[in-house]
């Protein structure tokens, strides 16, 4: 198969698809053995297509679940007028809860409440579960076996992110011990919260590192 034809098929498929397509999915479009491109060929074509969007109104974006054509944020004010419906706004409570789940996953509802200082409404959790931005990753083996929540690929897709690594960084905790030695803040490792965020390893995998800590 000629490069041009391959590129056209991939472009058309990505534009016609409802969501993102990954390389495996794109490979499935080619049924005949003799026409099946290699992964590298697909990757090369994708890179060309990404480059061809330069300066245009749409871009080919790599997100968590694959590649997706989407409109550029620069044209948002005009394109949004196509629809009458206003985009949903989220409350601070929902955004703060979501942030805690994303940055400190896996985390229980109790632990979220501890940081926020207020109870988390069931509605907030329900909305997040329903949007499939979060999911139950397991249960904490403490009395009551509370659910441990974590973020999903859908969450990344929705915010056009490839990995958790691309999220805005969490502000560092100021070092109380150094600036205020008179405040004896106890064990230093309790301040080390960075270890909560998923870390992308060399192989490109996301690992949730660091056990979830609770403070008493």
């Amino acid at each position: 198969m000629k490069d041009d034809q391959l590129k056209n098929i991939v472009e058309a498929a990505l534009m016609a698809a409802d969501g993102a397509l990954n390389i495996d999915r794109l490979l499935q479009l080619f049924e005949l053995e003799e026409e099946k491109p290699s992964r590298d060929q697909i990757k090369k074509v994708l890179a060309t297509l990404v480059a061809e969007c330069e300066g245009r109104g749409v871009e080919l974006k790599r997100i968590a679940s694959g590649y997706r054509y989407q409109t550029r944020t620069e044209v948002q004010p005009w394109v949004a007028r196509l629809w009458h419906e206003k985009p949903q706004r989220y409350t601070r409570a929902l955004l703060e809860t979501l942030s805690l789940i994303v940055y400190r996953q896996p985390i229980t509802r109790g632990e979220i409440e501890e940081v926020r200082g207020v109870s988390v409404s069931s509605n907030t959790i329900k909305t997040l579960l329903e949007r499939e931005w979060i999911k139950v990753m397991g249960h904490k083996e403490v009395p009551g076996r509370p659910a441990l929540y974590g973020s999903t690929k859908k969450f990344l897709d929705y915010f056009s992110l490839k990995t958790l690594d691309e999220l805005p960084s969490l502000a560092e905790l100021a070092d109380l011990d150094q600036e205020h030695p008179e405040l004896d803040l106890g064990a230093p490792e309790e301040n080390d919260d960075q270890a909560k965020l998923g870390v992308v390893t060399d192989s490109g995998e996301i690992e949730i590192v660091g056990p979830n800590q609770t403070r008493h």
Partner: protein
Amino acid sequence: MTDNENTSQDNLQGELPFAVVKGEPMTVPPEDLYIPPDALEIFLDAFEGPLDLLLYLIKRQNLDILSLPVYQITQQYMSYIELMQEMRLELAAEYLVMAAMLAEIKSRLLLPRPVEEDEEDDPRAELIRRLQEYERFKKVAEDVDQLPRMNRDTFGVSVLQAEYDYERPQPTVDLKDVIAAFQDVMQRAKMFASHHVGHEPLSVRERMSRVLSMLHVEDFVEFSRFYDVEEGRSGVIVTFLAMLELIKGHVIELVQAEPFAPIYIKPAVKGDVTNELAEDEVNYE
């Protein structure tokens, strides 16, 4: 945190309205402790909880969290709590717990401490840590809100296919699943007890839909045409009940030109609703 960061954050906060009172965005929180009663509830709504309120009180004095001024902050916090009580607002337990914690810290700082206990934890440390921790997530939640979001900042591309001769496979659904979903949602909503759903026969619901379908075709249908005598007494009653339900719900209206003239059913009068959002859109927002 440096002083510079502190100032820039304050500036940022100043630009965003933290509450809207009667359509007017309030960018500057009330300066003193007197807050007009109407505004208080909105004012408190602007806070996500006791930590948020404390952060605000600290920021208002342009202070670093690290140098938490327990005395002033406790006093201010207590005044707010008192005010809430005066307004007889329902006080969230979390606010009271925080008040107790502040009082405890204050009392411990007031008490003279024996020299050997100097090494003991500063009672402020835990509170400072919590405030810092909360502030980090408050900030990052704002950042997450700014991320480009599908259907707000960016939109998916949907290019049509050249030919339409394909039939897109649809998911199959088992009736059992629909029933189970209903059972589940009703259990969750605890509607069995409070709304007597069980007493409303399904046939009435179905008949309500059928009445509406007839009105969908014609806007004006004679009353008797809704009734099929062959259905017998129970069928007629069901139809009548369905009509009463629809009238009660302001969906249809009965019209009669003069006494003894034929009665007509028509969709309820369209009120002037141009300036109002659809009910479902309001809920959706």
